[in-house]
């Protein structure tokens, strides 16, 4: 394992200190417990939009803290859900009287820790709501499983709900909007290589030089099945077809297409894959109206990609286009 770190145990705090130095205009990093808070928090009367999860997915979530997106992010250890005290602390630091909306990715650990965190915050008198995003179509959904994971769609959800909160939409409105977005966003990913969790020291799985994992999540966990790695055309199709058929997305739909690098795959490959996905969607009569391309929801140095489709309407387009000023997403300001 070769990494630019000092000590697996202090990776997250060390990186947070660098983040603070790099973005003091946008955010404030607290370390005990670790919470990244927007620089001007709390914003009076605004709904505080809060997310969090294991570290190792940068820029998610700390890179999305700032005006028009998240009020706070709770970074756990690498690939480990944050603890309830972090979540309660995030609420306490950002509540401006408008209540807090917690955006939780659907993993057992995240759901349980956010649940307890929300209880702690509610006990302090803050009105707290939670939404759980589960956009990963690679996972079979059933009442008798942990359900689908939250993956790439999280970025789109946080941007759109963050924009609504910034406009003064209230907690009910933000929650309803979040549920609407969750209802119409779908994702799927693949990996060409595994990643190595610093404190694990070894890759989570190994792939032969001609293999890829289809249906990977974002925690270095293996995917649903392993196949021969083919051309980019084949890869994109293997991700896009299940996504489109799941919702389903249909001819005439307007969508946002998000082509995401898992971290280690270079941008040139993302643009290449994005171009293919745009063509395939055009063939299906689906109109791509907005796009995002790059490494936004990553698994450390894992090579691979994910695609996310969000069904758009005028409301969502407007909220997507609204100003955002964070380390990773910035426009309109």
């Amino acid at each position, binding site marked *: 394992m070769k990494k630019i770190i000092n000590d697996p145990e202090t990776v997250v705090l060390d990186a947070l200190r660098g983040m603070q130095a790099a973005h003091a205009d946008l955010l404030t990093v607290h370390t005990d417990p670790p919470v990244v808070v927007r620089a001007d928090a709390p914003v009076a009367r605004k709904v505080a939009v809060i997310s969090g999860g294991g570290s190792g997915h940068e820029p998610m979530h700390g890179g999305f803290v700032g005006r028009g997106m998240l009020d706070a992010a709770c970074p756990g250890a690498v690939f480990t*859900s944050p603890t309830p005290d972090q979540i309660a602390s995030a609420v306490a630091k950002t509540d401006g009287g408008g209540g807090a909306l917690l955006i939780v990715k659907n993993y*057992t650990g995240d759901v349980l820790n956010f649940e307890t965190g929300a209880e702690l915050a509610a006990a302090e008198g803050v009105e707290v709501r939670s939404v759980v995003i589960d956009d990963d179509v690679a996972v079979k959904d059933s009442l008798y499983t942990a359900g689908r994971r939250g993956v790439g769609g999280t970025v789109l959800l946080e941007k759109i709900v963050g924009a609504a909160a910034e406009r003064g939409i209230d907690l009910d409105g933000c929650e309803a909007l979040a549920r609407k977005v969750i209802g119409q966003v779908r994702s799927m990913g693949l990996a060409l290589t595994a990643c190595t969790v610093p404190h694990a020291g070894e890759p989570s799985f190994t792939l032969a030089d001609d293999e890829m994992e289809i249906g990977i999540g974002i925690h270095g966990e293996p995917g649903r099945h392993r196949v021969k790695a083919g051309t980019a055309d084949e890869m994109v199709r293997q991700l896009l077809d299940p996504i489109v058929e799941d919702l389903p997305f249909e001819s005439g739909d307007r969508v946002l297409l998000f082509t995401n690098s898992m971290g280690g795959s270079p941008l040139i490959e993302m643009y290449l894959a994005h171009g293919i996905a745009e063509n395939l969607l055009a063939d299906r009569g689906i109109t791509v109206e907005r796009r995002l391309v790059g490494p936004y929801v990553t698994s450390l140095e894992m090579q691979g990609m994910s695609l996310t489709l969000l069904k758009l309407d005028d409301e969502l387009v407007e909220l997507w286009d609204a100003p955002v000023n964070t380390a990773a997403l910035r426009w309109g300001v």
Partner: protein
Amino acid sequence: MTCTAEGVVSALRAAVAVVIAHRDELVRLDREIGDGDHGENMRRGFTALLSRLDSEPPATPGSALKLVATTLISTVGGAAGPLYGTAFLRAASAVGDATALDGPAVAKALRGALDGVVARGKAEVGDKTMVDALTPAVAAAEAAGDDMVAVLVAAADAADAGAESTVPLVARKGRASYLGERSADHLDPGARSTALLLRAFADAAQSDERAQR
């Protein structure tokens, strides 16, 4: 023999040592069917526990168990943090203010722990989770009679077997469930850590007993 606050604390210290010794094994198990952090999550939590046991020595078995709960909840993270946290919280409630625990009290504590895990995690036996280790442990504890040591040994033995039983299973809860069929033929890391903890408690109780004889 019964177990006082001191006995609980020495059992917890033994558990800390076992968790640290098995950190890499638990990481490896979780790498295979999860995300490779279970051993490190447990090590982080139990290391924090060790320093709190030193700085805030608990006065009763119940307050010792509660200290475990709050420590794990605020330091472990992941699925294991809230699940073990709730387990110890319910165990603490089950023993109340008692100053010493006999066999049935320990069994009651274990029952509380299991109920807590199930209430939070909604897993059943066969889902390939820590519930597969804890459920038979509770049953064995409840059948083991009055002797505190015998109860813990029975629980540890049953937990070992329960953990082993997860190997062929296809996971239906937790992160391993994303693997579908590919989760079979692997030992569940949480079931393994549950078995390790119970074995540590049993061993500690046995050596306390030997020391007192």
